[in-house]
């Protein structure tokens, strides 16, 4: 509409002469351009304010996204932790539910021990059998071996001292003969297994606990619940340990009431 009005004015002004037409048209154009310029400025200002608004919104969304991501990661972590706990609990429940009863026959353990022995025998024979060796054991190597054995297997040093007194044998001479070398290797493997795995009440026990727990288990096994160690450690109710009947006065001990009348009848 504005364009049509300007065009009309331009056409009427044109009737007054060419100069007036030019001036008129220039001023009109300037006005028009100024208006256009203002319009563009206001549009730019609007767009800028809108951009600011959008930028603000974006930063808000970014912050929100970060917060949500953090929450998500926390939830995932918690889920994993709970899943782990669940596994632990499930295995505990499975263990608790396992009945306390003999698991395998003695024959099974005999077989397992024989298999273990055969396996050790087989690989030591294969590895230590060689009749020719690269070089005989040197005095340094012998010292090194004695040092390692003194540190890790002092029980072997006791054996060594005993046999040295008897026969004057040395590692060098044992190392030189395949049969003796194999026997010594088997002895060292067996001694390590016996000392660290078989002898303790359970593999992994250390120091004083080793002896203590073993004594407890043996005592409990041989003397049962009446064992003094068992009484102390397991804190069993005295009624299970004392064999003599509880003395009663007029049927009941002072302050003691049997759970059911049938118990008092049975005792009397």
């Amino acid at each position, binding site marked *: 509409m504005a364009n049509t009005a300007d065009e009309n004015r331009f056409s009427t002004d044109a009737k007054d002469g060419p100069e007036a037409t030019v001036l008129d048209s220039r001023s009109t154009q300037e006005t028009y351009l100024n208006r256009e310029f203002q319009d563009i400025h206001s549009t730019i200002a609007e767009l800028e304010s809108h951009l600011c608004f959008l930028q603000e919104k974006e930063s808000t969304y970014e912050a929100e996204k970060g917060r949500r991501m953090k929450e998500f990661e926390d939830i995932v972590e918690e889920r994993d932790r709970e899943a782990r706990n669940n596994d632990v609990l499930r295995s505990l429940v499975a263990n608790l539910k396992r009945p306390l009863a003999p698991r395998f026959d003695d024959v099974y353990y005999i077989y397992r021990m024989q298999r273990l*022995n055969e396996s050790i025998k087989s690989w030591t024979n294969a590895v230590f059998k060689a009749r020719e*060796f690269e070089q005989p054991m040197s005095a340094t190597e012998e010292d090194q*071996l004695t040092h*390692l054995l003194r540190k890790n297997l002092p029980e072997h040093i006791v054996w060594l001292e*005993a046999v040295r007194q008897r026969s004057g044998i040395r590692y060098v001479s044992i190392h030189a003969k395949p049969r003796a*070398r194999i026997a010594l290797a088997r002895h*060292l493997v*067996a001694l390590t297994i016996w000392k660290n795995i078989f002898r303790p009440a359970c593999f992994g026990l250390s120091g004083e606990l080793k002896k203590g727990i073993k004594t407890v288990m043996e005592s409990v096994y041989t003397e049962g619940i009446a064992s003094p160690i*068992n009484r102390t450690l397991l804190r069993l109710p005295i009624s299970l340990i004392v064999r003599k009947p509880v003395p009663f006065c007029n049927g009941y001990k002072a302050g003691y009431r049997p759970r059911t009348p049938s118990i008092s009848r049975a005792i009397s």
Partner: protein
Amino acid sequence: MVIKQGIGRGLLRYLEPSHEELKESLVKSLDQILTLLLPVPYKLSPKIKKTIDRAVEIKNEMVCEQGLFKYRMVRSEEPFSRHKMEFSPDAQTGSVFVCTFPGLLKTDVSENGNMVDVVLCKANVELDSVFLDSC
């Protein structure tokens, strides 16, 4: 027996998490020792690891049993007893020189109510002649 089994299971549950680390250190120390006895270079650790794993497996099973098992290494100079020991099927003479595998015993109740150790597996030994005749 049930109490013994309960204690065993409890101990195993408590100690099992540390087993891998302990096994590794055992393999390492035995590897160091046996390497010095090797006639020719050889990578021993896989063999030792397998042996240690098997032994721990057997022990863990026995810990969870009701029966009380014992393992006996025979001392040097002990006279040979055919009821408790055995050696490879060749002519050997003398007393025990070295024990090459422990014997397995189980504590049992005898007829008169006493506790006795019954031999389930004989200990493996090598007698004096293996070492002294050849050296």
